[in-house]
């Protein structure tokens, strides 16, 4: 454990940015732990969500943005629904992911890769091409596809179509992504 120097290591700008981007007042959190108690993913987190909230309050940017937890949060809304102080905790987690991305951090790379593959698929076809997404993900992570066992279960059912559903407006969807990238780079 390291000692945190509260006067020097407090990143006020970080706290402010989290509050602004999430629209939440993090000082409302009184550390009751309800979010951690309800979060189905606590067992997989490196830092429980209530402590993420605490570390945000404490302005500990680096610890928070390099945590695995923010990538494992499934936005299940349990924390937001039950927070006695009506903090939209799930939104804070979302915003922390946005910030981590901007800092080039992703402590659970396969999750980020999966999401990126998903969005690539949407950008390319206008709709998600499930098989293509899976293949893309497996290629990108360079991992063996752990779901191989499922193949025989779904292919015969005709569920995974072999070609994407191209839509007429796919150019429009692609333009949404392009404009977004331009806006965020400007």
């Amino acid at each position, binding site marked *: 454990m390291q000692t945190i120097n509260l006067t020097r290591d407090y990143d006020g700008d970080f706290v402010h940015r989290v509050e602004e981007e999430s629209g939440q007042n993090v000082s*409302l959190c*009184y*550390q*009751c*732990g*309800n*979010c*951690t*108690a*309800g*979060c189905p993913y*606590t*067992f997989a987190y490196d*830092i*429980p969500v*209530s*402590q993420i909230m605490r570390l945000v309050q404490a302005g500990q940017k680096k610890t928070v943005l390099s945590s695995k937890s923010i990538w494992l949060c499934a936005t299940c809304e*349990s924390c937001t629904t*039950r*927070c*006695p*102080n*009506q903090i939209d905790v799930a939104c804070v987690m979302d915003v922390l992911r946005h910030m981590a991305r901007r800092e080039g951090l992703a402590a659970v790379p396969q999750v980020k890769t999966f999401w990126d593959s998903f969005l690539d698929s949407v950008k390319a076809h206008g709709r998600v091409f499930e098989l293509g997404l899976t293949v893309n993900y497996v290629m990108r992570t360079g991992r063996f596809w752990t779901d191989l066992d499922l193949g025989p279960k779904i292919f015969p059912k005709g569920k995974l179509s072999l070609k994407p559903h191209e839509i007429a407006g796919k150019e429009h969807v692609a333009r949404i992504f392009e404009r977004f990238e331009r806006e965020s780079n400007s």
Partner: protein
Amino acid sequence: MRIGVFICHCGSNIEGTVDTATVAKASLDFPEVVYATDTMYACSEPGQDGIIQAIKDKNLTGVVVASCTPRMHEPTFRRAVERAGLNRYMFEMANIREHVSWIGKDREANTNKSVDLVRIAIEKLRRDAPLSPSKFSINKRVMVIGGGVAGIQAALDCADGGLQVVLVERESSIGGKMAKLDKTFPTVDCSSCILGPKMVDVAQHENITLHAYSEVDAIGGYVGNFQVQVKKKATYVDWTLCTGCGACMEKCPSKKNPDRFNEKIGPCTSINIPFPQAIPKKAVIDPTTCRQFVKGKCGVCAKVCPTGAIKYDMADEIVTEDVGAIVAATGYDLFDISKVTEYGGGRYPDVITGLQYERLLSASGPTGGHIKRPSDGKEPKNVVFIQCVGSRDKSLDRPYCSGFCCMYTAKQAILTKDHIPDSQSYVFYMDIRSPGKMYDEFTRRAMEEYGARYIRGRVAMVYPKDGKMIVRGADTLAGTQVEVEADLVVLAAGAEAAVGAPKLAEKLRISYDKYGFFMESHPKLKPVETNTAGVYLAGSCQGPKDIPQSVGQGSAAAAKVLALFSKDMLESDPQISRVDIKRCVGCGKCIITCPFKAIKEVEFRGQKKAEVIETVCQGCGLCTSTCPQGAIQLSHFTDNQILAEVNALCQS
């Protein structure tokens, strides 16, 4: 008029953001001001002496103090100017603390605004006239509304002090919540052993008239002379005949009704005496379940009652009580745990409230003092307590701490071990609030001696699985999620204002906060007084309080009543309306408007005129803004005065 102006620093409270010297200097430019100064603490002894000295030295005939709110110190300064020989009504205040220095940091703007406020006070003062109060007699009877421990204490202290007391309780027995408790913290003595004798005293005290099963219907009048209409609800049992023998309860065939005294965890008969020590110990029929009422046939109780007390055709009755003061002691009710759906209260029988648990612990409760869980009657081994349910929770609009649940949870954990030695209690808490004599020691004992496991964190959900209740919470100190397989879950449900409290407050003409708790006159210095003269508060109707605090307030309210009644006559506030008989055309509009019936019609040289009954007028000024002639003017708030204030602000 020779006006003196005193600008208070209030230490740094005002001086910190208002340049008082400049305000004093500016005041000198206003009409009729002959003296102005700033002063460190105007209300302190040297401060008051300074004012008195200045009145004498400068021959002042009127005084303005600019300081805190008049709601705080107006009486103080009125007394001070009176000591210097002025009429106490030749005094005005400007509120430059609550309305200026405490709400803005801009010193220039604040100073400027203070000058404005002093100026309107001066303009008002210039039009003030000396007033003198008149005296009126008082009815030295007191009504106490609510017969919980606070009301009982207030009633007994007043009665012991020689006053006639009318105690109104809406249930069929007095005792309130305390009568439902098993043992009480921090000494763990038996609740009915310490409350029971007091209840008996109430029944036997010659000075106390008890209206049980009654509610206040309407209140008229004012301090010293209230008229209260009390509705005695129909019990369908003639209480003058009922001996409380209980024969009717034994035979009543309608046995499966939720017993409200047992917090609905046990059944009761349609005709019922809530508990053996009830005061009065009289039966009441619940017409919503009684077969005679619902189906039109039964009549068993009428047949078995040895005294012929049953009266199926009884109706509500209104009695009027004249009293000089009223103590409200209507207590609290519990937060409805079914609103926290994730805990399953109301859905799962083994999730209960702390008060229900008290009934399970109590020897007079539905299980005879054996802890049995409601679902299957089994003795629980693992009992989970969850604190702050419906308290400290903004999402439920209950941001306040209920004050006593930390302590009663510790008590219940201790009692659980006493009842079931091989049991294990778990307490989920956010903070432990136990600031009282022997209180923290008590909660520590629950952990150290009785082995209750305290877990710092909230619970997110409770659900049944294979006969157990799975409690999933967090241990924030360990930084983990935790689960307990519980047999019984006890929720420390928070305290809310008593059902109907706002309605009663409106009848009493006292204020209540947004949660329905009654407002005291001053949060520190007038905790049992209200803003309505002659109406006092005791116990948890003002906010959650434990027994020692409630009893203390009951006694305090009684002391206030006794002090009020220690005089034979009361002085009325002379800031009342007066009729200019030359202007009055006798139209009678004011008479209809006055909410206090304080204006009567009189004959003056053959013409109809209005006349204000001095001791009845409460000084609201409704008549003044109603009279088309401007004939009836509220002293110290006359049309001319208010317009002078307006002009001072507009023309500056």
